[in-house]
C-alpha cells in the first residue's frame, strides 16, 4: 500500500520535528487540556443551579461532552485545514502539491496534521468513563465496535464540512472568515439539540450536521431510545458528507488556476 507507507513516513517525520521542541509540545497539550477543562467547569457550575437541561441530567451532558471530544480530536489531528486558503491558494503552495503523484487532499492532510490533538481522545474517554460510571451505563460486547463507527462518523462529518469550505477557495480566493465561524457553530453540537428552536435544530441535523458529532451518537450509549434513529444515522451522515466533500474537492482542483508569482 503506497498510501499507508507514505502516511507512516510523514508521521515519523512529524514526530521528529515535534520532539525537538518538547517543552513547546507539552505546553500545547497542556493548553488543550485547560481549554477542555474550562468547558467542563462551565457544565459543572451551570448544574449547580439546575438539575435538568431540557430533560437531560448533568452526567448525561458531561457524557455528551466527553463523546464530542473524541471525534473532535481526530478531526483536529488530521482535517484541521482552516488555513488552506491562505497557505495553499494565496501563497501558491497548491502548485507544488499538484505536481506530485498522490491525491492532493491526502498530501495536504499529511502536511497539516497535528498529532498532539489526539490527546483529546484520551481526555474524552476519561470523561465518558467518569460520567458513564455515575450513570451506571452497561456495555455490551458490540458497543466498542459501535463506538468506533460513531466516532468515525462524527469525525467525518466535521472533516466533510471543513473540506467543503476549503474547496470554496478553488472558486473564490478572497479571504473569508467562514472557517472560524464554523468552529463556533460546531459548539452548538455539544449540547442536546432539543434546547434550540426548530430552525437551528434542522440546520444542525441536515445542513451543518454538528449534532451528529455530539448529542445524537451519545444518545445511543445513554440508552435514549427516542434518538436511536438519529444515532444510527451517524456513520451514514459521516460517509455522505465526507464523500460529497471529496467529490466537490475533485471538481474544485480542476478549477484551480494558481496564484502566479
Amino acid at each position, binding site marked *: 500500500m503506497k498510501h499507508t507507507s507514505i502516511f507512516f513516513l510523514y508521521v515519523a517525520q512529524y514526530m521528529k520535528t515535534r520532539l525537538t521542541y518538547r517543552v513547546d509540545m507539552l*505546553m500545547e497539550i497542556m493548553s488543550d487540556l485547560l*481549554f477542555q477543562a*474550562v468547558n467542563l467547569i462551565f457544565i459543572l*457550575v*451551570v448544574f449547580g443551579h439546575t438539575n435538568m437541561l431540557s430533560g437531560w441530567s448533568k452526567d448525561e451532558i458531561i457524557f455528551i461532552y466527553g463523546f464530542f471530544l473524541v471525534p473532535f480530536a481526530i478531526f483536529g489531528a488530521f482535517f484541521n485545514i482552516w488555513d488552506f486558503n491562505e497557505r495553499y491558494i494565496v501563497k501558491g503552495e497548491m502548485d507544488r502539491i499538484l505536481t506530485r503523484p498522490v491525491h492532493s487532499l491526502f498530501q495536504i492532510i499529511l502536511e497539516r496534521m497535528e498529532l498532539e490533538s489526539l490527546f483529546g481522545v484520551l481526555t474524552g474517554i476519561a470523561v465518558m468513563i467518569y460520567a458513564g460510571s455515575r450513570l451506571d451505563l452497561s456495555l455490551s460486547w458490540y458497543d466498542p465496535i459501535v463506538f468506533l463507527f460513531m466516532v468515525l462518523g462524527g469525525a467525518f462529518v466535521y472533516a466533510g464540512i471543513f473540506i467543503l469550505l476549503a474547496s470554496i477557495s478553488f472558486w473564490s480566493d478572497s479571504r473569508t*472568515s467562514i472557517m472560524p465561524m464554523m468552529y*463556533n*457553530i460546531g459548539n452548538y453540537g455539544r*449540547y442536546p439539540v432539543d434546547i434550540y428552536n426548530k430552525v437551528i435544530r434542522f440546520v444542525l441535523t441536515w445542513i451543518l450536521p454538528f449534532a451528529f458529532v455530539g448529542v445524537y451518537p451519545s444518545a445511543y450509549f445513554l440508552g435514549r431510545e427516542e434518538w436511536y434513529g438519529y444515532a444510527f444515522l451517524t456513520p451514514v451522515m459521516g460517509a455522505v458528507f465526507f464523500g460529497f466533500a471529496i467529490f466537490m474537492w475533485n471538481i474544485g482542483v480542476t478549477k484551480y488556476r494558481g496564484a502566479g508569482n
Partner: protein
Amino acid sequence: MGKYLEMIRVRFLMMLAYRTNYYSGILIYSINIGAYYFLWNAIYGGKGEIEGLSVIQMTTYVAVAWMARAFYFNNIDREIAQEIKEGKVAVEFIRPYHYLLMKTMQGLGEGIFRLSFFSIPGMIIVSLIFPIEFSAAFSTWMFFMVAIILSFIVNTQINLLTGVMTFFFFNNDGLIRAKRVVIDLFSGLLLPISFYPGWAQNVMDFLPFQAISYIPSMIFTEGFTGSAVWEAILFQLVWAVILILPIQALWVIAKKRLIVQGG
C-alpha cells in the same frame, strides 16, 4: 502626551483600512451569543431568576459581555512577545517614549475602533434578534462607560505582564494561550461570577479577573445596584493601580537583563 494621542489615531486608521474583516466578526459574535442564549434559556427552564438575574438580564449579560470584549480585547501580549523574539524591542528602548505605554495606546486605538465599528452596530443587530433589555437610566450608562474603560486598563495590564514575561521565558506562547483561557473563564465572560460556588467566589475576590468582564456586564444589566456599583468600580480602580507595580518591576529587571536574540 501628543505623541501618545497620535499613536491612538494611527492605530485607529490602520484598523479602519481593514474594516471589512469586521463585518463577519459581528456574525461570529452573534453566533456565540445565540448559542449561549438557547443554553441559558434551557438552564433557566421555568425558573424566574437565578442568583438575582432574570433570564432576560442573563441574555443581556451574555450579549454585552461579548460586545464589551471587542473593546477591551487586544493582542498586545502577542505583539510584545513577537517584538522581543525578533529583537525589535532593542530599537524601541532608544525611542523617546515608554514602550509599554506606547503599546497600551495602540491597544486603545484598536479598542476604540472596535467599539465604534463592531460593538455598537453588533449590539444593535443582536438586540433585534434576541430579547435584550437596555437600561433607561442615564447613571447606568455612565457607570458602564467608566467600568469598561477600567476593564480595558486591567485587561491591558495583564496583557503587558504576560508580554513582558517573554524577556524571561524567551518562548511563552503556551503562557499567552493559557492566560486567554483563564481570562475567558474567570473574568465572567462565560459565566457570571455569582454563579460559581461560594469558595470559588471567595478566591476570585482576591484576583483581578472579574474586573474585566463581570463588573461592566453586571452594571449594564443592573445586576449591581446602589452601593454595589461603587464597590465594583472601586475594585477595578484598586486593581488598576496595584497592577502597575509588578509591571514596572518586571520592566526594570527585564531592561537590565535584556538579551537580544537577533534583529
